[in-house]
């Protein structure tokens, strides 16, 4: 593969990924804030969540944990993402997404950072792991 072909391929891949990630974060935070009962569909069966240090394993448990969180309202300021090269890890189409922003929980505003490891399952993006942490 020539260097320019490699760059071309990468540009295409990054374009596609950015578009998909934008859709993903819209979908995720909309589900989180407004369609909490459907959030489980976004996680893989073996998903993990670490929420402010509380670790949860298994998609069902994650969904249950999230359903018990108080109402939230998220607002993002920044999203970054990387598609890990094929073969670098065993997770198919592993995409790491880092988001930061504000969330209102129980009437209190917190800044937060969140990391997702996305994978593709049956042609659908799903969350393999999720980490959420307050900044303040």
């Amino acid at each position: 593969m020539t260097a320019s072909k490699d760059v071309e391929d990468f540009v295409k891949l990054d374009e596609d990924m950015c578009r998909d990630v934008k859709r993903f974060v819209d979908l995720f935070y909309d589900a989180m804030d407004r369609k909490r009962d459907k959030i489980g569909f976004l996680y893989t069966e073996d998903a993990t969540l670490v929420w402010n240090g509380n670790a949860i394993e298994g998609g069902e448990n994650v969904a249950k944990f999230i359903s018990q969180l108080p109402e939230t309202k998220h607002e993002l300021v920044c999203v970054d993402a990387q598609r890990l090269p094929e073969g670098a890890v065993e997770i198919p189409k592993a995409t790491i997404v880092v988001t930061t922003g504000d969330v209102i929980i129980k009437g209190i505003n917190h800044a937060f950072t969140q990391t997702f490891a996305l994978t593709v399952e049956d042609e659908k993006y799903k969350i393999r792991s999720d980490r959420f942490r307050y900044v303040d």
Partner: protein
Amino acid sequence: MSRNYRPQGGGRMDAKQISRNRGNRYVALDPDIRSNYDDDDEPPTGGPPRRGHGGRNFLDRITGGVLNRRFDRNEHRDRQLVDSGSGFAKNAEVINKIRVKEGKKYDQTWLFKQISHQIEDFKPLLPTYNGRGDLEFFIKSSDTADAIRTISRRIVHRGSGDRIVFNVERATAPWQKLKRNEIDAINKVVDSRYNPEIHALDLKEFAMDKYFLDQDMHMMLNKNNVMLTVIDRIDEKYGAIAALNLSGNRLKILDYAAHLTSVAKFVKVLDISHNQIDSVEQLRKLHGLPISTLFLEGNPICESVNSATQYLSIVHDVFPKCSALDGNPVQPVATLPDLDEIELHKEPILRPGYYGPRGAREMIERFVMEYFESYDGEGGAVTRMRNLVAAYEEQKSQFTLAIMSLKDVGYVRYKDQTSHDIYIRQSHNILREDVWARYRSQRTVRGATAIAFALSKLPITKHYQESFMVDVSLVTTQLMAFTVQGLFEDGTIAKPEVNPEDVPTLNFFSRTFVVAPRGEGAMVIVSDMLYISAILPARLARYKIMLNKAATNPPCEQPLASTSTTSRTNEVTATGFTNEPSLEMKREMALQLSRETGMLPVWSEKCLSDQDWNMDRARQVFQEKRGMIPPEAFAVQL
């Protein structure tokens, strides 16, 4: 420098109290800090601030720095406030006045409850509404006032979406200060009237106490400053009282007595009989005390009612749980459950960093320490290039960064503009994709050499590892993902020789690494994602509070998982990233152990599994427990 109007302790108390309010578990992060805090007598400006290299308790210095500056200003202002006045002002106490902009729009009970959730020692005094509809109240403790300042714009009103703004200023107290000997006398009399056996405080005909009469002191409880001093004493020593007698004290206005509602929260029996209380409005100021037995007779309010029913309904309006009134049993009113009080959705507690499976913590901590050792410092350009190239996977590793400040009050300017300009040229913030789309190929750096080179071009930095919070989000046999978040300085600011008097100027970062195993206990970075934000002092103080709060709780040892997912749990937790062999490998290891020990493969496998697939440990355990292993473990297979 006159100190008489200053709350005890001095400037250091500010930071101290903030952390104490939060349980002062910051010690868990750094044992040095407590010794610093415990020294109350240390003057706020005592000694040059240690900066840079010493750097262990920098968060306190920052917070201390921020608050001390305010404190110095306070002192100046306080003096002005006192000096500007007449002889009257000389007697005034300077305290903190909190103004909640347009506070009339919000339910006061709700608002105070929200504040109490954030600030433990919240005791508002004399809440009133001014002409513009602002809620105003006083806070005696400067530490609490400072804490309130840090949560301005953090509480969100549900109906309107408004962010509650707190203005904190120094103001002369509306009461006159008592002399030291008067305060001592009051404390003495209050103490003498406490009955520890029944947790009761009897302040009946307070001013007539023999001790006061003997000294010709006029300590009437209907004087604001006397009432306040008494309540301060209750707060200090008798917060748990169950019964309080205030009868025969000529009480008419209960504005100051209202302070009892935030100080004596367990008073069930209250005697306010034979006073001058003449309106429901005054009585209502005691609303919130959990009164079940009330004595109210002998007040003008009792004369003004037409019937016993009306009398009772006034009382129940203020104290719905009242079941005995003036010595007669009464039926408490049925109340509706307070749905706001019932919490179906509880916020899970804030825990320290989650490190995943056993053994991962040491590895990650070492990795983080070594990584930032190479990354930081003035030689960063060289050490990043030289040392970090080996840290990344040669071909398949990637690095991106994104810079965009977290929202705060107004525009948050990045402290080091030159650094900011360097970061922004590399920023891969997808929400701003249109800005950088045409440089796309450069915004993701790929391959170890290119990454090390790109990192060497980034501003020099100093990361404060004691501010780090690490969470491991994913562990599989082939990768581990974790995020470090914390505080750092960069650019010229990170150079120690620049004005050593300065407190550090910090930024916030989060850095997510995906690493793959490489040999014994080592790992190689596959993905590195850096996020950077400027951070204002109030958020800095809150970040510290967040760390303290997390440190008060135990870390999560085992992930929460139902039994149906046990197998998965074991895979992720009991074994790990480096020592989790593939199935084939496990079989191989079991056969090997079987050959060495003569134990059947299935027993060998169990032994290995119990030891997290550590061959040496399995061998050792076999030797130690050989005598206890049942003979069937060695049965010959036919």
